[in-house]
């Protein structure tokens, strides 16, 4: 199955890192879309469907928390699982994002294997 993934982070190098992990993890990622903040991500989702969203929190313009709130408020978009990837690993922040409905949380820095483990949990183990 070819997955469609949206990566939301204001850092181009972070988006590149995540994209690389997805590719070498063996997932058949047919489409890997990118956005620099929540506003751009919503514009992408206005025209494309995805199977998974990976999002940072601290971003200029619309941050990750507001982005997730907007997703949860939409009848269609709320069904897309969201994985947070953020430098903020405080209990307060994690609790907050859980309450907003995210399905996973990875604190930066992380190993590529950690991201793959979460991708497998949310998408299933890829077949070689």
């Amino acid at each position, binding site marked *: 199955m070819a997955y469609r993934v949206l990566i939301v982070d204001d850092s181009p190098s972070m988006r590149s890192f995540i994209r*690389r*992990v997805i*590719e*070498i*993890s*063996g997932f058949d990622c047919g489409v890997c879309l990118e956005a620099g903040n929540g506003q751009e991500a919503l514009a992408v989702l206005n025209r494309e469907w995805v199977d998974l969203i990976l999002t940072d929190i601290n971003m200029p313009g619309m941050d990750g928390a507001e982005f997730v709130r907007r997703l949860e408020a939409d009848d269609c978009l709320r069904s897309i699982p969201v994985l947070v990837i953020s430098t903020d*690993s405080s*209990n307060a922040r*994690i*609790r907050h994002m*859980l309450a907003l409905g995210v399905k*996973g*949380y*990875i*604190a*930066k*820095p*992380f*190993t*590529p*294997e*950690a*991201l*793959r*483990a*979460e991708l497998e949990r949310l998408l299933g183990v890829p077949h*070689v």
Partner: protein
Amino acid sequence: MRTIVVGVADCAVSNDPDAVLITHALGSCIGLLIHDPVARVGGLLHYMLPESRLDAERALRNPFMFADTGIPELFRRAYALGAVKNRIVVRAAGAAQVMDPDGVFQIGKRNSQALRRILWKAGILLQGEELGGFSSRTVRLEVGTGRMWCRSTGEPEREMTGSVHLAQGVVEWRTVS
């Protein structure tokens, strides 16, 4: 079963379904185990140090002493027997802090970092690891089945499975209070 013992700064690759590759005394060293389940090719590298640049001459005589020369050679030999990169399962054990109670030299940690850096640059992810700690380890690989085991000093042997120990960064958010 035919046992092939891999010594320190040594490597073995086999496509014999009856072969078992084994290496002992993984203290700060790392044992890197690879297996292609389709071609049924297995390999085991036991390396001591992270980088060869401090002793290039020795690396020429024995590439398996160092991560940056031994790991590429391990994979080259596996490919020569028919292994294919995107099918290979990779696991590692070792990198313990032994005979260095204050952690001054950090050889195990350096070996671990070198492994992760080299695999990342090669586009390969680990699918199981037993790294760090303070105990010496023994690992073995059955070439016919691809099954891998690890035993730490004083503990029972356990099979290395596909699940990675909770890798750095994943938040066990379900248990956040």
